């Protein structure tokens, strides 16, 4: 398209102005992440929190909401996540936080986390056969968020005792008779810290005079002890979950609590 169509461009500019998050104003999130692919954005989020990255015990988890906040288009996130899940690159897990809040892990990280977690909890014990088979057979094909009885027992020949063992290890959660959620072992620890961090930030914003805070000012504060993953990780999570709204102002990006 030639340069002449300036009016269409200005229409596009208006479109951009109304996007969900005005990050590009102060380079808060790099441009190539905002308009790039979902995989890069996932890596970017995992790198945001030094605690998750270096503690070793924490699984390398990103929330789907965080992607909404980091990337410019929510549609791109949904379609990208769906595509990556179908190709088996990532795994999506249901959480207890809310209906639309899903955890995302790279499949490689997930497998690594399960084996490490097993070694840490059951010292000296040998990895049971069913877990090895689960890792090899079930996780090698791109499955959904749930596992069905037909798939697990009829197709792959797992016994009932094997399923009990897998639930004990924490890779499956009971959903219904004959269907299970895929799960991350010891994810509760992560979710607890995430929830506490959310509460801490909302508390900070509530205590300010006008119930809104400049994002840069928030970053320069000393994080409270309950905030383990760092401000950026939590703020992206809050914005994506529509708990905090981002407002573009002359002094920078303001954060305000939704429905407050």
């Amino acid at each position, binding site marked *: 398209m*030639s340069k002449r*169509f300036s009016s269409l461009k200005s229409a596009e500019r208006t479109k951009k102005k109304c996007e969900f998050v005005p990050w590009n104003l102060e380079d808060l999130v790099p441009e190539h992440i905002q308009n790039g692919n979902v995989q890069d954005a996932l890596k970017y989020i995992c790198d945001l929190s030094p605690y998750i990255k270096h503690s070793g015990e924490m699984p390398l988890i990103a929330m789907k909401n965080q992607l909404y906040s980091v990337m410019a*288009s929510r549609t791109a996130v949904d379609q990208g996540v769906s595509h990556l899940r179908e190709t088996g690159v990532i795994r999506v897990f249901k959480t207890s936080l809310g209906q639309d809040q899903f955890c995302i892990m790279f499949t490689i990280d997930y497998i690594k986390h399960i084996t490490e977690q097993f070694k840490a909890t059951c010292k000296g014990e040998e990895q049971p056969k069913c877990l090895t088979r689960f890792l090899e057979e079930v996780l090698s094909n791109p499955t959904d968020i749930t596992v069905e009885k037909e798939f697990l027992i009829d197709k792959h020949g797992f016994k009932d005792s094997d399923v009990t063992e897998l639930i004990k290890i924490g890779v499956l959660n009971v959903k219904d008779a004959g269907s299970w959620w895929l799960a991350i072992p010891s994810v509760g620890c992560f979710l607890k810290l995430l929830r506490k961090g959310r509460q801490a930030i909302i508390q900070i914003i509530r205590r300010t005079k006008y119930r809104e805070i400049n994002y840069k000012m928030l970053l320069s504060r000393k994080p409270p002890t309950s905030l383990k993953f760092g401000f950026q990780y939590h703020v992206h999570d809050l914005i994506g979950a529509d708990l905090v709204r981002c407002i573009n102002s002359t002094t920078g990006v303001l954060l305000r609590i939704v429905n407050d």
Partner: protein
Amino acid sequence: MSFLPLLQACQIGECHPRFFRTVIEHKQILSLVATDKEIQHNNVASTSAMELDPVDFRYLIAVGAQRKITIHNTWTSSDCSISCLPEVASVDGQRKHQHKKTINYVQWYPHDTGMFVTSAFDGTIKIWDTNHMKPVETMDIKHAVYNHHISPISASHSLIAAASSVHVRLADMRTGSTAHLLKGHRDNVLYVKWSPKDEFLLATGSEDGRLLMWDVRQAKAILLSLDQHNGDIGGNDARGTKAHSGSVNSLLFNEDGRYLLSFGSDERMRLWNCESGANTLVNYGRIDNNSIHRPLHMAIHHSGASASVVFVPAGRQVFLCDLYTGSCLGRLSEHFSQVRCCEHNKNTLDLFTAAEKSKILIWSPEIAIADNSGIDEAKFETGRNGTSETDRVSRLLQDTWSDSD
């Protein structure tokens, strides 16, 4: 002035006239502002539905909680002195014809303005003769009717699909029979919509969160039950698949009938592929919606794949969303209560919105208003008593913000 390069490109054949039109229309829609135009004798109580006549977008028919039906002429001359849309006809006071309870929906007969159909909470569907403003047929269903729809393209049938409690009922305008039931929903059906492509394809949304597609010719009429997760969560769920986690308040087809937009009380909108029933995963973000038990009416500006805009009632605001990318293009906030319906005039690009406790508001593109005022100024300069009108217009357009505050 920014249109001039585009106009030149159009003249030398570098840009298709349709593209030129799309660009200008899109820009105008993004500049919608509330006008001071009013609707004559508009009852302040809630307007539950309104529609422009589908033939030449001239007559706006509105119904509401006061059981009154009014028809307004929206073709006013560009003269600024007429700032209200005159009422051409109304049904009021004629007790024996009126509906007994709140009228929920009104629709013009798709092919001419001689007839319109209303449905109400008193469980009746009435077909009216516009010229006499009297019902020619009353169909008694005995269940509250939340919504109805007549197929806009049907050549071989004249069925009114009506959402009455848990069933969808097909009322035949030719025979007056209301016997045909479509069973499948488990809670009140809130919205019914015929496809604009296939005259036998019907989409219905209900309070149980299910969105069903029906082929009304078949004995087993449910074609598809749309699933928000595309079958990822729970394939063997006995309760069936859900399109929304709350109730489905509103449905809208795109112009060629290949996509269906749904809006639910889980504060999400979803775009569905009508052929496969798949969720296209377009994410519109969170859009306020706390009407669980009643339908809302969205409007759409059809303009191809790049610039189709949907007007969505979202709490006290109206959201403008791009249909296919899901980005939010703007918000119109002028109402003080919950917006219930939107109606769009595709020729003049005007938007009509009605809220629970206020008058119908008329929104026009800002550019068009500015143009009009320019013409009027020129006209009024020659006239004598036109200055006050010009002043009024310029005062409206004036920026009243000042440094001293």
